[in-house]
């Protein structure tokens, strides 16, 4: 026993020594690593950590020679792109369709010559909208992919952000959080679409104009949202708009919606406050649990909210009639059947490559994400640097990405306040369009930017994820 205990103490002591001795090794670490990489600038097969340095030091490499490290295999002619997708969590059905959009986009690119002859393969991983799983899967994919075609969820993307920065890898965030436009956060991210915060401003100004046109002199508003980055970012934008436009907030339910709880009390409070406009940002299920009880009491108002609140399936439910009367919808991408060159191309590709797929607006989101990465890969190829860091730098230098009418064009250079996307699509639900084989979105404003949103000075995230 005594001897045994001594041995364990010795073992413990070794571990304590581990903790104590490595202390001053770190400074030498960085200098040593830096010295190593300057020696091997032309080494294209170097470890990923080395090539960040190697890539920058050989930007003037001889033409025709392309630098690669992870995820691009010039001999096999393949590019591997990672997707961190929520396939089984709360946004599963939506993200699954977005992944289908990405797959169809790249299948088409591969069939028509690829990215300068290189075939793009997707590595899709299911995060189940769980932060630890998201981080683990990032760790798995980072040694296989050249960039991440999307990363689902704001807290999730914030969690991997320090590692993206340390590893020098690009990711396209699959959330419309306003923080992605903040240069303090987005060094490795290229976002797209109007953030929730500015979307709210657009919707509220549009809804106010509608209410005024209908004869309401001074419209009142109720603001209801989920907690978290999505709900709060949206609700803060709504509050800014209400203040700017002089709308009286008669009921403030910011962050009050807790999914899974009884939401009827919120519906009752909205009805009691009797607003002219209800701004609601929740999940589709929570929306029906508030909207249903409210209209049952004979309540009538203009209802509007962030894009993910609405689900086209509502139009096949008993809510359809009321929704067509009350609801103003928003979209970040042109809805199915908009008739832009981009949507026409998408619809043709879905019809030929996924003949059984039902029409959904989420495919377009997948197309938009894939298009950004496609442009970045082309620019990286032209620059002769298809390393992870090279693709990141190429994406960050994209002056204009043209989505061909599928979504408003994006730019990743210049001042954050200037390049911030402020334009949304506004539609009214239309059951007839759904029945005719579309997604039931009757576009009333294909490119709407309110004055409130246009004049909004962006200095940082509306809701800060600390």
């Amino acid at each position, binding site marked *: *026993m005594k001897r*045994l205990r001594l041995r*364990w103490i010795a*073992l*413990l002591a*070794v*571990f304590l*020594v*581990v*903790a104590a*001795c*490595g*202390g*001053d*090794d*770190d400074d*030498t*670490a960085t200098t*040593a*690593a830096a010295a190593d990489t300057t020696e091997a600038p032309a080494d294209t097969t170097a470890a990923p*950590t080395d090539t960040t340095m190697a890539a920058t030091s050989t930007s003037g490499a001889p033409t025709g020679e392309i630098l690669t490290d992870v995820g691009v295999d010039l001999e096999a002619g393949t590019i591997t792109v990672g997707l961190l*997708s929520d*396939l*089984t969590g709360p946004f599963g059905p939506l993200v*699954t369709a977005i*992944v*289908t959009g990405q797959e169809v986009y790249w299948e088409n690119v591969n069939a028509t010559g690829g990215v300068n002859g290189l075939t793009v393969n997707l590595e*899709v*991983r*299911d995060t*189940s909208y*769980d*932060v*630890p799983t998201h*981080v*683990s899967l990032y*760790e*798995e994919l*980072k*040694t296989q992919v050249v960039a991440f075609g999307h990363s689902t969820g*704001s*807290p999730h993307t*914030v*969690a991997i952000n*320090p590692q993206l920065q*340390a590893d020098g890898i690009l990711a396209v965030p699959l959330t419309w959080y306003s923080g992605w436009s903040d240069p303090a956060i987005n060094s490795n991210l290229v976002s797209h679409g109007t953030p929730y915060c500015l979307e709210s401003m657009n919707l509220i100004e549009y809804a106010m104009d509608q209410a005024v046109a209908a004869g309401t002199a001074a419209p009142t508003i109720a603001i209801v949202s*989920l*907690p*978290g*980055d999505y*709900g*709060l970012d949206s609700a803060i934008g709504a509050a800014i708009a209400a203040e700017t436009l002089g709308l009286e907030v008669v009921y403030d339910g910011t*962050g009050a919606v*807790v999914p899974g709880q009884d939401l009827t009390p919120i519906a009752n409070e909205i009805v009691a406050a009797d607003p002219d406009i209800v701004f609601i940002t929740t999940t589709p299920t929570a929306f029906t649990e508030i909207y249903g009880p409210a209209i049952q009491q004979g309540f009538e108002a203009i209802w509007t909210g962030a894009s993910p609140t609405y689900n086209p399936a509502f139009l096949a439910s008993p809510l359809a009639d009321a929704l067509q009367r009350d609801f103003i919808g928003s979209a970040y991408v042109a809805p199915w059947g908009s008739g832009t060159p981009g949507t026409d191309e998408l619809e043709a590709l879905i019809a030929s490559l*996924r003949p*059984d*797929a039902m029409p959904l607006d989420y495919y377009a989101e997948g197309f938009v994400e894939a298009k950004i990465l496609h442009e970045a890969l082309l620019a990286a190829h032209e620059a002769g640097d298809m390393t992870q860091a090279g693709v990141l730098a190429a994406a960050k230098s994209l002056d204009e990405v043209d989505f061909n009418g599928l979504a408003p064009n994006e730019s990743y250079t210049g001042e954050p306040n200037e390049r911030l996307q402020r334009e949304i699509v506004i539609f009214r639900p239309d059951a007839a369009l759904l029945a005719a084989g579309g997604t039931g979105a009757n576009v009333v404003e294909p490119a709407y930017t309110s004055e409130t949103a246009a004049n909004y000075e962006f200095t940082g995230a509306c*809701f800060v*994820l*600390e």
Partner: protein
Amino acid sequence: MRGRPNLYVSYEDEQAILPTWTKRVLMVVFGLAAVLIPLGAVLQFGERTVQPLGFLAGGDWLRILGTVAITAIAALGLNILTGLCGQVSLGHAFFMGIGAYTAAVLGSPVGAAGVFGSRWGAGLPMWVWLPAAGIVAAMVGALVAPTAVRVRGLYLAFVTLGLVFIGEWMFRTFVAVTGGSQSGRSFPPLNLRLWGIEREGQPATGPGLDLVGDGPSWAPINWLDWLLGPWINLPDTMSSEAKHYVVLGAIAVVFVLFAKNLQRTRIGRSFMAIRDRDIAAEVMGVADAGAKTRAFAISSFYAGVSGALLGAFVTRLIPESFGLDLSVQFVAIILIGGAGTVTGALLGTVFVVVLPRLVQDFSLWLTETVNAGGFLAPVADLVVSTGPGDFGLVSTSQGVTPGLNVAQLNFVLYGVLIIIFLIFEPLGLYGIWIRIRNYWKAWPFTY
């Protein structure tokens, strides 16, 4: 007399952690493997080099191993409460949350508005916040215990189930501490610092050891490399994940030893007496309420430390992370591994943490096999579903296809395995191990 199985000449020998030489040798081999393989040891045979199980040294597998270490600590805690003391608890996630948020408040950098800003943070070093996370969780555990000791079995399960829901509500509501629902907060990184208050936006002060970032190997690793001679070589650099693995592994080893020793003490025996027959235990002089309170406190200490490490490891958690699913995961670990034994809890942890990755890799491999063609393709095609109209158990395509996807398959496997183990092998993986061991013990005379 020496070397005869099951013959002990002293009580001390019988109670030894490693009573036989076979176990001692195996433990040394296992310990060396657990250090060497994940650090990327290379065996040198003249000109030839071999890296056994080299994939374990990859960043993704090191992360899985780190998760195993963290999960093992919490599982050992539940094992003390449920396995040793017989008190079923579904509230383990709540105590992990308490520990995680204690660590977040004590360890996060001090913000611009001071300690009690929009997110509380005192910027204290890890040697303060890690034990504090355990102590606060243990105190909460001791507070809860008076209610819990009055009920038994199913009723206790319900009391602790309530804890999870109260906890989730608290975590969602207390925004300054937890960051609020669905947005969460960042956690202090696993940096070993001797002193110095960390402030937001300023480089860390005080001497210490950063685990974040890659760097040269730590001195003890280099000594080990030197000790092992020219045949086994360790790399000169350590990735951030490797550093985390070493530190988390070391912490887990301390907790394993404590759990193992607890079983051999008066306290541990009083737990087992209560588990086996609480009235008989009281008749023999074991204070029922006191022992149960102690079990709750110790178990919560484990959970608190594990929660704090999880937060630091993942760097950001949302309040919803500490929900019922997490508690159920630990019950599954205990049941699959085998309740009441340290080895069982560890086996269960490895199984439950590694299973999703294995299922994922297996289904990806199946898809590759189908796509590659060849004689295995039709067999793989029976299992995997690659598109609409193609029936199979596992679906790896993202569209609407028949079959389960990887996450769903994992859940189904959990459920099926718990039922199978409860019916056929109540001792869990540990029971299977014991049977295999007993078979070989008397081999070739096994009958």
